[in-house]
């Protein structure tokens, strides 16, 4: 991004912040803030100005207006001394933050194959699963959950109730494990009197307790078996071997079950036949894979157990996309399309010089640009390409 382009983007960001209605987070004066400016280091080097704090909303609004930052963050945590150095801040608690980003969900090698639009669709699916976990398993109220489009390739959920504020990182880790299905043991949901005598019940069916993951496993199992029953034998074998990592013999017995109406009837009622161990494990694997909130197994998992991290300020702009970090309502989430609804800039034509091939679909129009071209595009497209490093003014 050359200096002229940077100046243009900065003017546009300033315009935005002049009128923007920022969502001020709860207890904002106890939070640490951090910003990246459109300065001469940008975007090669992102210099984060951290350990800031604001005492009044006005002070914060002025700061944003004056500096029109490329990226704006606040801490998930609240502190006694938010502007102090990390060690002296005096941690008082932290919101529970979920950060679902496309590159946590799709592995690096696959990332290339997906377009930006596809990635957004993928990540939205995972977010829907996460919301379901939050509402039904964890019992959070919609009003306590702030759902936000990240401005780039993901969604954040902030939960700031008194209840969750005090959770330490190990407790948060358990919540991460829950939504990702880590350490899941299907046997925990089987109601068998294994207790003191060590004896199991007779030969009759097992009951899968339909609570929490038990409910998800049962539903997942039924769906999987239905899917299998409809497939051709060969396809079904392949699928089972792949998702369940099962051997031929075991895969075959599952297919047999799937096609047996009387057994299926019992399963739908929550009565599970006594499968062998391998079959159990295979089924658990297969079901878990579709039900859990996905995350490539990296350190950056969807819910962060880091209780000191920074998170994007809702309604600020994302300096790598020019899209808004947009707060959303859960009821209307299904209909949300970031490439339409998070666009903030206008339509007046701007002439740009393209430095790299690229394409994007914004507000329903597809724009395809080629290196070396000089084209006139609507302002929101121009700013987008500039922020992506695809074009200069």
């Amino acid at each position, binding site marked *: 991004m050359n200096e002229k382009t940077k100046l243009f983007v900065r003017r546009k960001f300033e315009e935005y912040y002049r009128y923007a209605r920022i969502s001020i987070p709860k207890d904002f004066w106890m939070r640490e803030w951090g910003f990246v400016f459109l300065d001469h280091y940008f975007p090669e080097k992102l210099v984060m100005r951290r350990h800031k704090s604001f005492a009044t909303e006005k002070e914060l609004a002025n700061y944003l207006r004056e500096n029109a930052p490329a990226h704006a963050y606040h801490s998930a945590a609240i502190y006694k001394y938010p502007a102090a150095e990390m060690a002296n801040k005096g941690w008082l608690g932290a919101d529970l933050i979920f950060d679902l980003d496309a590159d946590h969900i799709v592995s690096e090698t696959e990332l290339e194959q997906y377009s930006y639009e596809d990635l957004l669709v993928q990540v939205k699916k995972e977010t829907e699963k996460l919301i379901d976990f939050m509402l039904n398993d964890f019992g959070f109220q919609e009003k306590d959950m702030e759902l936000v489009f990240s401005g780039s390739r993901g969604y954040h959920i902030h939960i700031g109730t008194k209840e969750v504020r005090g959770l330490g990182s190990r407790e948060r880790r358990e919540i991460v494990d829950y939504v990702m299905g880590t350490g899941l043991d299907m046997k925990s949901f089987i109601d068998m009197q294994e207790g003191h005598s060590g004896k199991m019940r007779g030969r009759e069916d097992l009951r899968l307790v339909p*609570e*929490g993951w038990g*409910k998800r496993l049962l539903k997942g199992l039924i769906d999987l078996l239905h899917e299998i029953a409809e497939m051709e034998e060969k396809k079904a074998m392949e699928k089972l071997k792949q998702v369940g990592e099962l051997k031929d013999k075991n895969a075959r017995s599952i297919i047999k079950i799937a096609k047996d109406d009387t057994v299926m009837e019992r399963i739908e009622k929550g009565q599970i036949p006594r499968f062998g161990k391998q079959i159990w494990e295979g089924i658990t694997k297969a079901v878990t894979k579709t039900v859990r909130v996905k995350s490539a197994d990296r350190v950056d998992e969807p819910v962060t157990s880091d209780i000191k991290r920074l998170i994007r300020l809702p309604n600020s702009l994302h300096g790598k996309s020019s899209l808004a970090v947009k707060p959303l309502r859960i009821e209307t989430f299904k209909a949300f399309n970031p490439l339409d609804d998070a666009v903030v800039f206008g339509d007046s034509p701007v002439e740009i010089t393209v430095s790299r091939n690229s394409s994007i679909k914004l507000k329903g129009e597809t724009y395809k640009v080629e290196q070396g071209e000089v084209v006139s595009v609507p302002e929101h497209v121009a700013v987008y390409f500039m922020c992506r490093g695809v074009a200069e003014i």
Partner: protein
Amino acid sequence: MTDWHAEPAHLCLYPFLLAASKRVEESGVTLENLISSAVFERARLRGKSRITEAIKEGTIRKPVIISDTQAEMELLSYPFARILVSCIRDERLVRRYALSEAKAAHEKLLEESSRRGSSASASANIIYRMSEEFGIRMDFLAGEREQVQVPFVDYLRFTTNLRDKRWKLVNRGLGKGKLKLRKAEFVRIVQEAIYERIKKDLPLDVPEDICKAISRYTEDIKHELEEMRNAAGYGFELDSGAVVKDPSCFPPCISYVLSNLKEGVNVPHGARFAVTAFLLNIGLSKEEIIGIYRNSPDFDEERTRYQVEHIAGDKGGVQYTAPSCDTMRTYGNCVETDEICEKVSHPLNYYKYKLKLKQKQEQKQKTE
């Protein structure tokens, strides 16, 4: 229904409760009195035995209370025990002591909370009482005496130290923010809460002159402690007192886990598996191995027995072999290696190698 926690005879069995410390405060017994007055010698001796029992048995016996004086002595023995532990200033002892107190209380709670028939309401009462005491919100399920419901936030507060899979949140039926627990499971969580509370401000900051004044008690305890550690360090002592296998030849990975178990530190599942398999492979009996786990904070005899038997191949399978060094490394169970580790690729070979080495050395010494 009597308010049991107001009765000294009952209260003294749970001396870490807020009501208990309040009672001690209100009794007017000063620290000065407690550490020196002849009247309280019984309390002091009991305080000492709390700790020696912790050292020797890993739990603290609950006496049968027959008189008010005895109840008072029992109650006062607890603050005195805390002073003693604090003067000794040994972190491992603090942990062991706190764990023993918590376990003893757990056992008592379990007994009281599982009473049926006419005492059923008292048994529910004790559950309510503990939930209030430790701020674990709880309610009984409608029409249920055996299961309670707890918000996940309160559950997490006290369970992240419990390593067994069944305690993982993901394996609990979580619905609308709450999860169900059998009464016994609830009491198990209370044990964690008790442990945390007891350990929290230990060691206390006891002035030097007070520690000096009670050194005749602390010296005895230190002696016991040393004896226990020597015994543990030297051989693998069995109930019978015979030393069969030579733990001085165990590889670092195994010794490490064993010492953690001895200290009551939680050991992850994978490491437990490795140790169990290792010990079975070198010929320890199942009972001996179960005995080793007895100290572990989430010891559950049934489950341990089941697991040990499973690894031993009693469940119709073959006996498992201890994992190789490669596998140990993968799961982060290979700790501080030594020179011998470089020569072997399996913990069992480490043991055999070192055993031979030792025998050779001993023979050499004899012939010299």
